[in-house]
């Protein structure tokens, strides 16, 4: 052994380190990470008991104390801005793909490409996940969940109205809604939510995509969005007609937010709804839903012979730039990102799997589609194959990687409301939105 330059003591030490590394493949303990006593983790408020359970497991594994905080999802962006600009210590956070550009440009996030196994994970990301989490060629997180807007319907209402299959086109949505309404099953069969908040963009993009429309191309040039008869114009017109002409949408839809819409749908209000796909699980949960077992998902209805595309998104676990300033904190933060967004020692995306089986949250890892537990869980409240099909047809919001996107989104909300309320002309509104987009593009471009 001496000849090999390896003393017995060194061999034993290396063997011990090797064993420890094998025992903790998710953590890959580095000497510097062990020096960190506390880590600051911030998320939006969802599945808190499960999050806390995972935190406790990580604390035990990594011997670190996690300071955990959370805020409602609709206020998350603003809460993070306040915390970052106030230099509140944050190490690991939930991140929204649509806010990635501005947060990276603000210098608040740190790319994770340099860490071990990132390439392995990246190869297993499904369709849009890698692109969604990449900005300027760098990866800024591991997927927490991947979701999209989904068309849900109450099967019992359709059966009572003598409707054999859910609608495939937006015209059929109107026809079926009128049929349900005429039979007195529901006064307002299409449950619409369109409060001027975070979800408004996701909903409008879904209605536009499903009509074959686009907003901007990869170079952020507007693609006929503001033309007469564009998919965006059709989508807004459909919303107006549904409310005013056909009266199939409940009158207060401009004040209804996503959570309230889910609660209403789960209480039996509405026969059709567009909600985030993971809400299908909640709508079929007997403990919280009066219509459990009756809510099904269908591919999004279309128009103009378009593909049933929906707006999709990716949420991830990210490391902050402030965490990365200190090598020890950086190592520990990565450990946590890896623990939550990566594989465990058995090679399973444990957290992502649990999010799906327990909460219905979609995942961003291809191998999970073949996992028998996932398939079994999906078939309990829906159809696994349908989930996969709709997921494959989901697209992130056009232009969301532009650093000015969130600013434009904020500008868009009241203006589309005004168009829906009849206070502004639809095409005129779309032209104003295009003008603002181009103005911001010039300013930031």
């Amino acid at each position, binding site marked *: 052994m001496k000849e090999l330059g390896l003393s017995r003591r060194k061999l034993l030490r290396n063997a011990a380190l090797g064993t420890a590394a094998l025992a903790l493949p998710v953590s890959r303990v580095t000497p510097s990470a062990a020096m960190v006593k506390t880590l600051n983790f911030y998320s939006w408020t969802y599945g808190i008991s499960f999050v806390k359970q995972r935190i406790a497991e990580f604390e035990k594994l990594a011997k670190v104390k996690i300071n955990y905080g959370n805020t409602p999802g609709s206020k998350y962006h603003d809460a993070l801005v306040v915390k970052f600009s106030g230099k509140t210590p944050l190490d690991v956070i939930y991140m929204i793909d649509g806010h990635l550009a501005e947060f990276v440009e603000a210098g608040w996030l740190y790319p994770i490409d340099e860490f071990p196994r990132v390439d392995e994970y990246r190869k297993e990301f499904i369709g849009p996940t890698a692109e969604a989490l990449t900005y300027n060629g760098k990866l800024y997180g591991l997927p927490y969940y991947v979701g999209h807007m989904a068309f849900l319907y109450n099967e019992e209402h359709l059966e009572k109205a003598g409707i054999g299959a859910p609608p495939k086109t937006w015209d059929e949505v109107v026809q079926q809604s009128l049929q349900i309404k005429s039979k007195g099953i529901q006064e307002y069969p299409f449950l619409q939510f369109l409060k001027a908040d975070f979800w408004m963009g996701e909903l409008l993009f879904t209605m536009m995509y499903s009509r074959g429309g686009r907003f901007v191309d990869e170079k952020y040039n507007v693609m006929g969005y503001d033309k007469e008869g564009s998919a965006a114009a059709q989508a807004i017109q459909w919303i107006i007609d549904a409310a005013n002409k056909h009266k199939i949408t409940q009158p207060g839809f401009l004040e209804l937010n996503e959570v309230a819409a889910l609660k209403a749908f789960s209480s039996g209000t509405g026969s059709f709804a567009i909600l985030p796909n993971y809400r299908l699980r909640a709508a079929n949960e007997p403990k919280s839903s009066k219509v459990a077992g009756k809510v099904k998902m269908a591919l999004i209805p279309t128009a103009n012979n378009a593909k049933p595309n929906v707006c999709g998104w990716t949420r991830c676990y990210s490391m902050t730039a402030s965490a990365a300033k200190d090598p020890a904190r950086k190592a520990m933060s990565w450990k946590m990102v890896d623990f939550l967004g990566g594989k465990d020692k058995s090679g399973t995306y444990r957290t992502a799997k649990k999010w799906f089986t327990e909460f219905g949250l979609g995942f961003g890892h291809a191998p999970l589609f073949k996992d028998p537990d996932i398939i079994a869980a999906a078939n309990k409240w829906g159809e696994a194959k349908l989930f996969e099909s709709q997921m494959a047809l989901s697209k992130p919001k056009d232009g969301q990687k532009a650093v000015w996107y969130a600013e434009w989104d904020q500008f868009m909300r009241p203006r589309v*409301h005004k168009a829906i309320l009849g206070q502004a002309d639809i095409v005129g509104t779309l032209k104003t939105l295009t003008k603002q987009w181009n103005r911001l593009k010039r300013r930031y471009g």
Partner: protein
Amino acid sequence: MANILSVEGAKPADATGLKGWFARRTQTEGGIAMFFVGPALLLMVLLNIYPILHSFYVSVHVYNLKRPHKNPYVGFENYIMFLESEDFYNAFMNTIVFVVVSVIAVALLGLIFSLALNELGSGVRRWVVPLILVPWAVPYVANGLIWEWIYHSDYGVLNGLLVSLGVIDKYQTWLSNPNRALYTLVNAFVWKEVPLATVLFLTALQAIPEDLYSAAKVDQAGASRRFWHITLPALKLAFLLVLVYSSIISIKTFDLVYILTEGGPGDATALVSWYTYVETFRNLQFGSGASISYVIAIATFILAIGYIKILYRPQES
């Protein structure tokens, strides 16, 4: 006045060093006052004046967090930009309506309730006053959430109540109707702020000497004359307080908008405070956000001075 720290026979002014400097400084009343007030003043400078000055510095620079390393000095460009903005104009007009209606309603209802309470016996009043203060003690966010439940178009208590009373025949939209939304916010604001106004008026009412009313009655003055010539003049200071306080609070109302409407539907409930928030924390334009805050602060200050000029006469205090 003698120096409180001086010792009889000593000549503090002649002493040298720190002790001497200190003794000389505390020779006068002003010096002593400064000695006691100084630390608090220093804290105030650090905690208030510095941020005010710094925010002014920010307001005359481009301070966009999406471009954190580009902060050129732009003079009053941020101010000009938002003053020319259509969105700001809309928010400004909404704010004027909100403030005027809210302040009038708070003052009038506060006065009416206080007059009614003043007629109650002191035993009853002792129980009622703490109770009516409850809405005022509710935190602003909780107040917003309460009213969200009340106004909801599908399951709101207000609709349920009005339908059961036969006032309306079907559920109405309160928050998504652009013609009503701003007034629903006013109502939520007034509900919270009237209790304090009532207590302020009530306190002033109880300070009016009973002799004045007795003398007026001897002079055969009717109830209305007694109200106009005795009660109202005696309430001037209370009015000043209520007007200044409710104006300031209404100008900076944000929580109700944040919780209930996010400025919608359309921009029907976008107040200046909301506009500032969006510009700062959603658009990350801290420079223009700071400039708007400055204008709001100055406008509020001018309004308060106006009230004081009109209502405050030192001899009446």
